[in-house]
């Protein structure tokens, strides 16, 4: 029977068919009895009675089963209702016959549960997602009915409010995060105000402006620090060079001073020597003059000798003539002796001796003549020599005069040089003092440079420790002003320098 019901899916249909059959049988039986009365055969009556009993029995069975089904459905509904009452909305009633009242009730029951369950699940899912921060989920009132639609719409308004609050909270958390980053010297991040609520945009803008200001400040600090560091480095380097140069200069100046001292002393001794030389030259001059005089006297003496020699020559000529005449006289005596014969023989010997004497006198005169001539030549030579000497002395004198002039010049020059050297010495002494001052200043400047460098390093370290956008782009140029550069930037920087603005 259940099989049958499930096939036709209508308990009412079966029930009605049986009821109609019963009606047809009863009406047929009644009509038959009315028209035919006692004439109805017993068998026909029996058939009717049996049929009526059978159909009635069937009706009772079907009725019982219907009651049973009804009761089962009620039990099923009770079960589902109890589950629903205990909060389990999952269960439904199946195998519903819509032709039955209980079927309609079942569907109403199912539909009610569908409404409650769909609404509850929608609510639960929406709340679950929004509590996870996902705001896209909302209640869908389509398909829900009555109060559920109203509730859904109210809940959606509430969800929207929660979403707004969450969004605001998220924005505020973002802001706090950024502020915390700023606190930790990281100025890179800005707050994105896209989709931000009007009432907190002002706050975000304020924080962003703060970030920009901090960024600008940090970049400027970094830039200035780098520039200062660079300047300090260069200063230190240059000061070191100056320091070293000053030391080298001091050594050189010392060497120069001692060299100058030596030159000065050399000059002094040179001066003394030139004075001595001048004196010697004067002495030589006087000796030369006396030499000249002596040479003149020698020449005079030579002339005198020449005159005397002439006199000797004349005397010799006289001697020569005497010898000649003596010779002739001896000849005459010899002739006379020869004539006197034997008496005269002694005389002849005397005459001979006289003649020998005359010859020897002539020879002696000749020898003297030769000697005198030689003496004359020598005297002449002597005169020549004396004349040469005079001329030599004259030249010597001239030379000495020139030498004296030169010596005087040298002396003058030496004196001037000495003066110059003294001035140089003074200048060197001044330079030495200045150099020492410079060295001292350089030393002090070096300390300043080192301190500046320390400060610059601190500034740079501090500035670099800050996380700033564009930090890596902050460089100092080799030269702050590039003279070859003609672009706009140069003028900008120059203008900034001019107006004492930060670069």
């Amino acid at each position, binding site marked *: 029977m259940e099989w049958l019901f*499930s096939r036709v*899916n209508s308990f009412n249909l079966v029930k009605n068919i049986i009821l109609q059959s019963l009606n047809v049988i009863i009406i047929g039986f009644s009509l038959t009895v009315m028209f035919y009365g006692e004439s109805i055969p017993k068998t026909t009556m029996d058939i009717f009675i049996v049929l009526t009993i059978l159909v009635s029995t069937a009706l009772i069975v079907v009725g019982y089963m219907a009651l049973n089904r009804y009761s089962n459905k009620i039990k099923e509904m009770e079960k589902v209702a109890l589950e629903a009452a205990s909060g389990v909305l*999952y269960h*439904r009633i*199946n*195998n*519903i016959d*819509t032709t039955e009242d209980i079927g309609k009730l079942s*569907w109403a029951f*199912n*539909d009610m549960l*569908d409404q409650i*369950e*769909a609404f509850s*699940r*929608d609510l639960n*899912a929406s709340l679950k997602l929004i509590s996870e921060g*996902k705001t*896209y*989920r*909302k209640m*869908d009132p*389509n*398909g*829900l*009915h009555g109060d559920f639609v109203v509730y859904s719409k109210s809940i959606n308004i509430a969800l929207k409010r929660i979403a707004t609050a969450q969004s605001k909270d998220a924005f505020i958390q973002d802001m706090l995060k950024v502020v915390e980053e700023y606190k930790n010297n990281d100025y890179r991040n800005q707050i994105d105000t896209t989709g931000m609520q009007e009432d907190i945009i002002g706050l975000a803008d304020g924080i962003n402006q703060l970030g920009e200001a901090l960024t600008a400040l940090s970049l400027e600090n970094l830039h200035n620090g780098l520039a200062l560091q660079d300047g300090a480095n260069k200063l230190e380097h240059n000061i070191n060079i100056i320091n070293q140069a000053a030391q080298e200069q001091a050594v050189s100046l010392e060497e120069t001073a001692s060299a100058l001292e030596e030159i000065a002393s050399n000059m002094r001794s040179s001066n003394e020597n030139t004075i001595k030389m001048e004196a010697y030259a004067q002495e030589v001059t006087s000796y030369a003059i006396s030499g000249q005089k002596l040479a003149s006297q020698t020449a005079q003496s030579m002339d005198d000798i020449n005159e005397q020699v002439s006199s000797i020559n004349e005397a010799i000529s006289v001697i020569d003539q005497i010898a000649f005449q003596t010779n002739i006289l001896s000849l005459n005596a010899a002739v006379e002796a020869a004539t006197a014969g034997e008496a005269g023989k002694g005389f002849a010997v005397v005459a001979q001796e006289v003649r020998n004497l005359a010859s020897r006198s002539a020879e002696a005169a000749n020898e003297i003549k030769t000697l005198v001539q030689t003496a004359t030549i020598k005297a002449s030579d002597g005169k020549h020599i004396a004349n040469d000497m005079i001329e030599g002395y004259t030249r010597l004198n001239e030379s000495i005069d020139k030498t004296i002039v030169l010596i005087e010049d040298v002396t003058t020059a030496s004196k001037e040089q000495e003066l110059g050297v003294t001035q140089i010495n003074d200048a060197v002494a001044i330079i030495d003092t200045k150099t020492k001052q410079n060295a001292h200043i350089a030393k002090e400047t070096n300390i300043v440079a080192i301190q500046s460098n320390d400060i610059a390093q601190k500034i740079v370290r501090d500035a670099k420790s800050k996380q700033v956008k564009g930090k890596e782009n902050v460089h100092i140029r080799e030269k702050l002003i590039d003279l070859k550069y003609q672009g706009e930037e140069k003028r900008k920087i120059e203008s900034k320098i001019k107006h004492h603005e930060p670069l």
Partner: protein
Amino acid sequence: MRTKIIPTNEEKVLNQNDFIVSKTNTKGIITYCNQIFMDMAQYTESELIGTNHNIIRHPDMPKIAFKVAWQLIQSGEEFFGYVKNLRKQGGYYWVFTNIMPDFDLDGKIIGYTSVRRKPNPDALKTIIPLYQQLINLEKSGGMDSSFKAVSDLLNEKNMEFNELSIALQGDI
């Protein structure tokens, strides 16, 4: 044994005040369906209960849609999507589907409940060509390529699948 239904272009539009409710076990076998379901799908309760839910699957649906749905609900999440369903007489109807897993008291999934509403016609203007594109991709490159297309779309929109579905539905 079901006879193959030949799809027609006859569309049945779901009433905005109604929703289709159905429940299945973990294997997709229908355990409950409401009267709207029967009305829309043109099946009786006894035809539907005990049958796999894919009885109403339309050939115009890309496989990836069901894959995404199963992935989500099997991991305990809900699914929102647009589904074209096949009626017994070959017609079709579009639904905006929400499927949720049913949990027992221990938190174990014991089945799934689906509530289907009328989809926003504007959403369908986007969905119909998208599904056609996905089906073409599946024909040429299998589900891997349609999965990639869906992933790319979601990445591009920076949305979750459900978020995109709900956004398309809007308020109707």
